[in-house]
């Protein structure tokens, strides 16, 4: 097959993460295509968040390779990079399962902190800022405009001057996504963004993610338990169980995969053997 002009945005090969005797992720390989929403699903404890932590540099993988390819042709080996560099240089942004906003700072400040790299680039060592140079003021105004753009999109512009901790739960989830977007990422990793949302909010979230994908050409990596979200918007699903990949394909394929059904619903051993025999495993 011909190589495509642009390689896949994320290529994970034989990713293994061991904590002492426990193997949380076992030789996992998958790819995420550019401009797709790729979901990682699996029962609790399957190692999904561990995969995320490896990709975003919070863990150093025991083995394996994680390659990120920019549209420019530049590529990064994420497993070799410092955590903050993955966000700054490779431009991978993430959200957290338990929301991690800067609660004591205002909504607007949260979005400006996310643009730290862009602003410090204008004002090395804060000198331009300290002296109040025009170049810095312009950059700051642009940063505020960009923040306002996202606040309008997530419907929080009216609350820009409130402390982030005072927002309701659903708004905090959306703000965390907007904050990640303010780092201008090429790949956004969302760790259970629909957790704790009501059906209406979760439908809104679907719309937001689809819009971000279309409008900003963003690639999204998603961990989610809410099947409504996963099946509704994913282009591609990877299923993990006990740290191993058990299925990989389109939502329709994964939904009918007996391994997935077995992992989620649980089956008798002989039934599993039968199922495995059926699909020649």
């Amino acid at each position: 097959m011909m190589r495509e002009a642009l390689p896949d945005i994320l290529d994970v090969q034989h990713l293994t993460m061991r904590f002492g005797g426990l193997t949380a992720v076992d030789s996992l390989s998958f790819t995420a295509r550019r401009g797709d929403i790729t979901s990682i699903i699996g029962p609790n404890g399957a190692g999904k968040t561990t995969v995320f932590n490896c990709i975003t540099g919070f863990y150093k993988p025991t083995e394996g390779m994680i390659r990120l390819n920019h549209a420019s042709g530049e590529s990064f080996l994420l497993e070799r990079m410092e955590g903050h560099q993955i966000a700054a240089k490779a431009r991978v942004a993430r959200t957290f399962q338990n929301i991690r906003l800067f609660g004591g700072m205002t909504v607007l400040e949260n979005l400006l902190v996310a643009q730290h790299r862009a602003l410090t680039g204008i004002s090395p060592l804060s000198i331009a800022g300290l002296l109040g140079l025009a170049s810095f003021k312009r950059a700051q105004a642009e940063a505020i405009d960009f923040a306002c753009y996202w606040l309008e999109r997530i419907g929080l512009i009216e609350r820009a001057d409130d402390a982030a901790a005072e927002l309701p739960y659903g708004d905090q989830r959306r703000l965390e996504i907007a904050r990640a977007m303010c780092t201008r990422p090429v790949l956004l990793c969302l760790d259970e963004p629909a957790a704790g949302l009501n059906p209406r909010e979760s439908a809104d979230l679907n719309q937001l993610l689809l819009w971000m994908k279309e409008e900003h050409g963003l690639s999204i990596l998603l961990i989610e338990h809410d099947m409504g979200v996963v099946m509704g918007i994913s282009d591609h699903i990877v299923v993990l169980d006990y740290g191993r990949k058990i299925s990989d394909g389109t939502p329709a394929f994964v939904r009918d995969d007996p391994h997935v059904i077995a992992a989620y619903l649980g089956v008798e051993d002989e039934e599993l053997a039968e199922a495995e025999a059926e699909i020649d495993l």
Partner: protein
Amino acid sequence: MTAAGELSKADTPSQSILGEAVRDAILTALIAFALFGSLVGFKTESVQNVLVLTTRWGDAIALTLAVAVGRFLLDVFVWRGLAPTDVIGKSLSFEDFKPVLKAVAAALYIVGAAFFLLEGSRAGVEQALSSLAGAEWRGAIRTLVSLVGLLAMGVFVLITAMVVARLGRLAVRAIAPAAEGEKRSAVFTWQAITGDLMKEFAMGLLIVAILLPILVAGPQQRYAVDTAIQVVTYIMLGWGLNVVVGLAGLLDLGYVAFYAVGAYSYALIATQFGWSFWVCLPLAGIFAALWGILLGFPVLRLRGDYLAIVTLAFGEIIRVVLINWYSVTGGPNGINRIPQVNFFGIPFDRSETGFAALFGLEFSSVHRIIFFYYVILALALFTNVVTMRLRRLPIGRAWEAMREDEIACRSLGINIVTTKLSAFAIGAAFAGFAGSFFATRQGFISPESFTFHESALVLAIVVLGGLGSQMGVVIASIVLIGSSEFFRDLEEYRMLIFGGSMVALMTWRPRGLIATRTPSVILKESKQIAAANVQEGRG
């Protein structure tokens, strides 16, 4: 006991509780007296090898009473959980105290105005009171009048300055073209004059600070300006430490180390090379900042208690090195004959070319002290301006974000290592400036000036003022440093007052005097952020 009065007033079920509590307190008093009567009431002394029995009934009774009253209060308010409002029979809020506070402020203002403006009014009041109460109370009355008088004059001067600041701002606003949508007519209403008190308070304090040497002119001037220098030095140190503890959320118990580095840098450079203060000042700041980075590296991974302990140790290491590195630092003897700062090349002496002669003034040793005062005031204001500016810049926002959540910071591409080190370095640089000022003012430094006590005091100022609040540091410094001077007449009781007021303050306002956080950037309107939402940082 006080319970009797409360008992008659109480018409609620709490009456029976109070009765029980009184009985309990009396029983406690009996037991306590049985103990203290024998243990404290009698004392044996050996006078010239003869054992003599003396009695101390006063002390024993005081202790007994303290135990009984304490037991009663604990019993009623803590164990039985009765709120003070149940006893009084109505709920109290801050609004109820407002008229009282206003009356007290007004009374102090009038007294202060009289004392400040009318020559001899203080002596007159003192005389009148003494003749009323009798000669034996003269000493106590003098102390009381001088304390209340000082407080009243402070209130008078401050409120006047606040009014001046307000009027000045209104005048500027009246002359300058009005911003769009602003209501011109509202300028001279009472609301406009009293509103926005915090800003006026800051402006008023600044006016008082600038005029201080003139305000305190008189026989006490030297002492007053000396005290003010001390207060402003601690304000500056507090502002510096506020960068590390308040903004970045890194608990630093060894802050005095950087103060020492700054002081010794200036002392050594000035005595060895004879460089001027204004050249040494930035050098001292740079050295202190380097030491800040040096300390920063090993503690990057430490959090909370561990960070506090390591910084504490670092402070002690610096002090021990200063004591033992005899050939350079002079060891425990310190460094003396440190050149004192002069007025941009003009010395403060009696000579023809001295400051007094050149400006046509009569020579006075106070000139130098007043100049010192303005130097430290300028340094402190510089610290404040830089800190407030940094807070609105990406670096300052990164400090605060780091205090709120370090992991989220990393996920946004903020380099935690450089962010932490920059906080340590900048905080340390301010301490270095303050240190070199300290060295030039004292003319003599030794390791004894840089003990853990200093670190603790500066940290107490920051914590009492409210983490991250610049104004809080000012108030806390004035209260802590000023009050220990103010109550000097009360001798050892002042430490009791000091400790007691600290405990009371921390119970009443656990997040410090000014606990709310002001946002660093505003889209439409500025809203203060409640203390409960703001993290204190885990190191």
